[in-house]
C-alpha cells in the first residue's frame, strides 16, 4: 500500500488565502452572522466566455483547483473528486424560482445545467480536458472527508498517481433565511475574535473552496502525508473520547503522539460540547487550534482545517489567531483534526509531516 501526500493546496475562503506565498499574514475581521469568501480576481484565472455562466461556488472551485494544480506543477490529473454539502445553491434557487414565478413555463437551460451538485467537478474537468474518474460526494459535513477517503484509497492501491480533491460550498441568500429561522445561523452578529465566547445557538455561516493535489509520489514541495481519515454519521457525545482513542490506536498512536489538535468549533453552544470534551479532556495537555472564526461554517469547512494543518506542517509556523490554548509544541510532526456539525457527521483526519 502506497503512502498518500498532499502535494499542493489552493484555497478561496473568507480570508485572503488564495495567495499560497502567504499564510494568514493578514486577518480579515468580521462582525456578522454570515460572511462571504474574499474574491480573487476571477478573470485572472477564467476567461469571461467561460465564467459568464458560473455562479460563485463554481468560480471558487475552479480557481482553487487551478491554484493547487499550478503549485503542483501539473497540467492534468488522473482523477477529480469533489465534496460539497449543498452543491450549486445559487443556480438551484434561480432555477426553482423560475419554475414558480413562470408557472412552470419558460424554463431556461443555463441555471438548470449549472445547478447540479457535480457542476464544479464537471467544470474543472472541462477546463482541464480531464476524462479520468470524476466523482462528487454529497455527504453533508463529511462530503470533503468522503472525497479524501476515495482519493486515498485510489492512491494507496496505485489506481492513480495524482488526484485533485476539494471541498466547495457557496452562500445563497434564501437558504440562509431558512437557516436563520431554525437557528442554524446565529441570531446576533458575532465578532471574529469572540466566536467561541458567543455562547449562543447556531453558527456563523460562510462559503469557500479548498482544493488539494494528492499523490502517491512525494515531492520536495509536499505539505503533509495523509495517514488516516475516518467518518462517523452518528455517535453519543460521551463516545467521542473513546472514538478518538480507538482512531489513534488503529494507527498505532497514543494521545502523547499528537503534537497539535485542530478543532472545528463553530461557537454553537448546543454542539461545541463534542469539541470541549476532547480539548478539556484527554487532549488537555496537547496544543490546540481552531479555525471556523476565520472561515465560518459550511458543510465543507473542514477542508479549510486541512488547508490550515497542511500549512502548519510545511512551514512549522502556527498563526497566533488560531490558538485555542497556551500549550506550545516544540515542533509539528503529527496533527489530528476533528470536526462535526450539529452533533452529526464526525470525522478524524490524521496528517503527518513529510
Amino acid at each position, binding site marked *: 500500500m502506497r503512502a498518500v501526500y498532499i502535494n499542493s493546496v489552493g484555497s478561496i475562503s473568507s480570508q485572503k488565502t488564495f495567495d499560497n506565498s502567504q499564510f494568514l499574514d493578514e486577518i480579515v475581521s468580521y462582525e456578522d452572522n454570515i460572511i462571504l469568501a474574499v474574491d480573487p480576481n476571477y478573470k485572472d484565472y477564467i476567461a*469571461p*466566455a467561460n*465564467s*459568464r*455562466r458560473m455562479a460563485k461556488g463554481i468560480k471558487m472551485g475552479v480557481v482553487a483547483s487551478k491554484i493547487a494544480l499550478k503549485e503542483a506543477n501539473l497540467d492534468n490529473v488522473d482523477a477529480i473528486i469533489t465534496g460539497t454539502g449543498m452543491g450549486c445553491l445559487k443556480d438551484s434557487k434561480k432555477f426553482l424560482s423560475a419554475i414558480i414565478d*413562470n408557472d412552470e*413555463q*419558460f*424554463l*431556461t*437551460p*443555463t441555471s438548470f*445545467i449549472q445547478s447540479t451538485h457535480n457542476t464544479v467537478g464537471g467544470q474543472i474537468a472541462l477546463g482541464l480536458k480531464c476524462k479520468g474518474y470524476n466523482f462528487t460526494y454529497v455527504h453533508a459535513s463529511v462530503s470533503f472527508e468522503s472525497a479524501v477517503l476515495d482519493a486515498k484509497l485510489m492512491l494507496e492501491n496505485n489506481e492513480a498517481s495524482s488526484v485533485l480533491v476539494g471541498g466547495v460550498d457557496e452562500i445563497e441568500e434564501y437558504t440562509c433565511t431558512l437557516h436563520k429561522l431554525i437557528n442554524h445561523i446565529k441570531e446576533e452578529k458575532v465578532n471574529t475574535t469572540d466566536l467561541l465566547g458567543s455562547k449562543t445557538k447556531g453558527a456563523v455561516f460562510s462559503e469557500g473552496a479548498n482544493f488539494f493535489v494528492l499523490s502517491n509520489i512525494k515531492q520536495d514541495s509536499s505539505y503533509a502525508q495523509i495517514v488516516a481519515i475516518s467518518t462517523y454519521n452518528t455517535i453519543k457525545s460521551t463516545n467521542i473520547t473513546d472514538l478518538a482513542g480507538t482512531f489513534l490506536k488503529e494507527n498505532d498512536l497514543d494521545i502523547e503522539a499528537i503534537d497539535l489538535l485542530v478543532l472545528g468549533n463553530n461557537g454553537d453552544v448546543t454542539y461545541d460540547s463534542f469539541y470541549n470534551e476532547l480539548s478539556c479532556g484527554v487532549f488537555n495537555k496537547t496544543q490546540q487550534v481552531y479555525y471556523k472564526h476565520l472561515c465560518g461554517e459550511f458543510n465543507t469547512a473542514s477542508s479549510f482545517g486541512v488547508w490550515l494543518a497542511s500549512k502548519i506542517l510545511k512551514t512549522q509556523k502556527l498563526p497566533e489567531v488560531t490558538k485555542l490554548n497556551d500549550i506550545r509544541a516544540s515542533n509539528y510532526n503529527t496533527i489530528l483534526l476533528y470536526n462535526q456539525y450539529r452533533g452529526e457527521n464526525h470525522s478524524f483526519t490524521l496528517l503527518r509531516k513529510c
Partner: protein
Amino acid sequence: MDTLKQELKENIVEQLNLEDISVDDIDDNDILFGEGLGLDSIDALELIVMLDKNYGIKLTDPKEGRAIFESINVMAKYISENRTK
C-alpha cells in the same frame, strides 16, 4: 423598431450574462453566434425561451433559430412581424 432593438440588446447582455460586453458594444448587424458575439447552442435555447416569454413567439423547430438569431436587425424584424404580445 429602435426601441425593440435596444430592448433585445439589453435582454441579451443581461440574460446571457455577457461579461465584458455592454449594450453599446453590440452593433445591429453584428453576427451573434460563432465568431461574432460568440454565442453558443445553450444561448440559442435561452433566446428561444426569451422569444416565447417576452413576445409570445413559439419556435417549434430549434433550427429556425439559426436564421432568426443571425443579428439584432434580423431578430427585431422577425419579432415585429410575428409577436403576439
